[in-house]
Every structure is written in C-alpha cells, then in structure tokens.
C-alpha cells in the first residue's frame, strides 16, 4: 500500500446558508480544496462525496455525478461516487478516497462532504435524522434520535455518576472553541446556566446538549505521500484509518455506554499508525450530543470508562488541556451538516497540524485524530493524521 497525504483542504461556513444551494456549497468547498492544493481540474482522477440524505433533504439523488458535473469535470468523465453511512458519511468518503490512493488505483482524489438541511422543516429534519437509527424497532415505537442519546446519558449518570453539569461543560467548551472559529455556526461563548436553563429536548438532554441542523460542505484533496511535496510545503499524512460497525438499534448493543465500533475503529487506526493515545495532541470527535463526546473520549482510549465527564469538567479536554477535543467547536458549535461533518473534522485537524489555526491553534500539534459516527454508533470511522 502507498502512503497517502492530504494536500488541500476547503470548507464553507456552516449554518443557515439560505442563498446557496446544495451544489453551490459542494462546489465552494471542493474548489477551495483544489485551490489550496494548487492543482488543476484535469489532474483529478476521482471524486468521492459523503452525503446522508439529499434524497429527502432536497429531493435529489445521484449526488456523485451532480457534484462532478458542477465542478466542471463532466467532460473528463472521471469516476464520481456518493458514499452514505448516516452521520459517518463524510468520514467514510474520506476512507474510500484514502483506500483508492493507497491501493494505487488513483493518484489525485478529491473527497467532499455536503448536506443541505435547512430547506426542510425542523420536524422533517428530525425524521430524516431518525432514519439513522432503526426505523422499525426504535423510531416507530416512539424513540427520537435525541431520546436514544438521552437513554445513554441517563444510564451513564446512573452507572458512573456523570453529572448534568459535566454534560453542560462539553457544550461550554465547544462553544468557546467555536467562538475562535470564523467558520463555526455558533461563535458565542455560553456558560453552564445557559445549557441548564435551555428547553428540554429529551430529558436529561436540553437544546444546548444537541448539535444543530446546518447547511455546509467540506473537502480535502489526497495524493500519494511521495508526490505531495510537489504541491504543498506541509503535507499531512493519513497514517491510520479504521472503520467498524455495530447493531443498528441501540438496545441491541453489548453495552450502551461503550461504543464498541469506536473502540474497534480506533484500535485499527492506532495499530496502523504505530502510535498510542498519548501521542495524539488533538481530536475532532462526534459530539452530536454532549453525552456523545463523553463516550467518545472514553472509547477512543483518552480517558478511562466513566471518567469522561470528570475529565471535561477538569479542563483536560480544553484547547490548553492534555488533549484538545473539538478545537473547531465540534458538531455542537461548528455545526453538523451531516455528510460534511466527517470532512470538516479532517479539515480542522489538517489546519491544526499545518499550524495555521489562528486563535484556536494547539501548540506543537503534530498528530491529530478524527472520529465520525453514524446513527447511535452503528458505523464509526477513525482517522489519524501526522504532519510530515
């Protein structure tokens, strides 16, 4: 297998992008990544697009060809593939691109992710997001996507003594990071009270425990590491990639408080990278709900099971903590345009490893990790990046 580098990154602002269509934002992010890589369109061998549900959000399927078309690549007739794994669609698209370059099949690959969620009502958006869990045995019986995470949160509090305040601290930290990110959907700091006084969504989770609906897109350009220096001064290598699956329904998991797919995906990625958790300085993890970040930092092996809440409360996951978690603001503050999220995580980690993250820059960052989850944990993708 060939070693693979990221030579370009690009993204849109996340949020309510009323003036832009799905294809507009997809192309904006893709072009920015191509500009950043200093390549030209005819050099692109293949495109992968992560997208969860364009069919239901904008009634448009066949997204791979659409994006290649509006990127001006129709006459080049390159392979264009849409990839779906609910919330992990973007991370999975990145992994497909990584495998395509590593295998030698393609040299220059653009991987994008996009979702246009704001064209539908809040209720429609909730229903579409619920389709990431088991429609027949969870949703139709009354479980919303948020309530499934509420079940995890209440049980985590019951078994490990995680507090309501510690959940709030995840949101407070991520909003603080988001306030330093000009691309974030929410750029205002909040405090515990704001979270604890926000309306209930699914007890014990409140509005400020949940990531928002968002429009947005993000993209990266990949090539073999051996060629990377031709294009950019600071290539970032993808040194580990792991993917794992689990039961679709939360109630069938071995343990609802441990995302086994996270553990397995991380184990595979770390093994391939030849690194351990202590070698990582920052991670973008899938905080679609505050409780999700606590599970993630435990199951990725950064903290012991049950200690994620305390670690957050103690500031160990802050920008200046022992491992900076969600420096972009995470899904919570940077926003969560579902298919784009996995790529936005990669864009943030590459930006950090290049040392150009501005006010939110993590000092001496050389290794970063991304963690992208589909559903309540039925698909997990982990990537590890290193400045080369």
């Amino acid at each position: 297998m060939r070693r693979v580098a990221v030579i370009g990154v690009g993204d849109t602002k996340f949020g309510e992008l009323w003036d832009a269509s799905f294809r507009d934002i997809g192309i904006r992010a893709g072009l920015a990544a191509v500009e950043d890589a200093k390549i030209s369109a005819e050099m692109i061998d293949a495109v992968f697009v992560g997208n969860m549900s364009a069919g239901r959000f904008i009634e448009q399927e066949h997204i791979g060809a659409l994006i290649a078309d509006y990127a001006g690549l129709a006459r080049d007739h390159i392979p264009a593939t849409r990839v779906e794994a609910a919330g992990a669609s973007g991370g999975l698209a990145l992994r497909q691109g990584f495998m395509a370059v590593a295998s030698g099949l393609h040299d220059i690959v653009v991987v994008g992710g996009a979702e246009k969620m704001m064209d539908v009502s809040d209720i429609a958006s909730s229903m579409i997001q619920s389709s990431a869990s088991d429609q027949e045995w969870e949703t139709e019986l009354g479980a919303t996507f948020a309530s499934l995470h509420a079940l995890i949160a209440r049980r985590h509090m019951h078994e490990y003594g995680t507090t309501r305040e510690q959940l709030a601290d995840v949101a407070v930290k991520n909003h603080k990071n988001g306030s330093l990110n000009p691309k974030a959907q929410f750029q205002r700091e909040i405090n515990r009270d704001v979270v604890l006084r926000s309306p209930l969504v699914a007890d014990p989770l409140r509005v400020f425990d949940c990531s928002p609906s968002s429009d947005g897109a993000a993209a990266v350009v990949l090539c073999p590491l051996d060629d990377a220096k031709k294009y950019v001064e600071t290539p970032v290598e993808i040194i580990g990639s792991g993917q794992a699956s689990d039961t679709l329904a939360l109630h069938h998991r071995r343990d609802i408080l441990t995302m086994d797919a996270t553990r397995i995906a991380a184990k595979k990625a770390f093994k391939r990278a030849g690194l351990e958790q202590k070698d990582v300085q920052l991670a973008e993890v899938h905080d679609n709900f505050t409780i999700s970040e606590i599970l993630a930092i435990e199951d990725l092996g950064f903290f012991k099971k049950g200690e994620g809440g305390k670690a957050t409360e103690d500031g160990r996951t802050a920008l200046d903590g022992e491992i900076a978690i969600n420096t972009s603001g995470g899904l919570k503050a940077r926003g969560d345009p579902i298919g784009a999220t996995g790529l936005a995580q990669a864009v943030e980690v590459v930006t950090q490893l290049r040392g150009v993250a501005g006010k939110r820059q993590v000092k001496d960052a050389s290794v970063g990790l991304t963690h992208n989850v589909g559903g309540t944990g039925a698909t997990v993708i982990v990537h590890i990046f290193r400045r080369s």
Partner: protein
Amino acid sequence: MATAPRFWRQNPSRYNLIGIKCNSCGKNYFPPRAICPVCHRKSVGKIEPLKFKGEGAIFSFSEVHEGIDEKATLKPYLVAMVELDEGPKITGQVIDCDACDLKIGARVRTVLRKLSEEGSAGVIHYGYKFVPVRDKKE
C-alpha cells in the same frame, strides 16, 4: 412515516412479542433474526420462534419534549429501554406513569396500544407500550 404494509409485516412480532431462541447457544432475540450473531453458521436450522412474556425492568428512560411526526401532539411522553426477563432489550413508550415515578430498575410489562395513525381517517398502527407493574399490596 411508514406505510400500512410496512407496519403490517411487523404485526405478528409487535402484537404478540414473537422473537426467536437460538438452540445452538441458548440466547433469545427480539425481533426475530435469521442468523444468531454469536453462533453464525452453527445457528442455521436451530432457530425457533419464542413468545416473550413482556415483563422486564427499566434499563434507562427519557421524557421526550421534542417529538417527531404525529407523536408531537402527545408531548411530553416517556420512552424507555427495557431489559426483558428473557434477556433482550427493547425500546418503547411508557404510559400510565408520571416521569417522577419512573426509576431505573422499575418493573414494567408490555400492553398493546395505538402507536400512530395515518391522518385522522387513516390506518391506525398498533404495537407495544410499557406500563408499570404495581406492587400487589397497593
């Protein structure tokens, strides 16, 4: 929301709590599966239907304030993950119970109730919900 045929296909299990038992490892599953995830190929031909009693204990629960679809009119409502006495966990609504009464570990049983309907004159879908099991002395 699902259409009538999609609901009807699940009715035998939803109405009667029919799952399966794997006679290779002895584990029980709900809803039915063709293959035991523990035994894989060894389970072929060794899976038989099992009717669950519908009693169990609350494993976790939530009071849902932001509903989806037609359940929006019933807000807030309670959702719980319940560990059935035969082993598997299932998810559903809890009724006849205030949030303050509900505790992890509390005993519940399933009852057949209306889940949803396709508009005011449409097909009504039924399935299981949970009710608390009261202490007989009360």
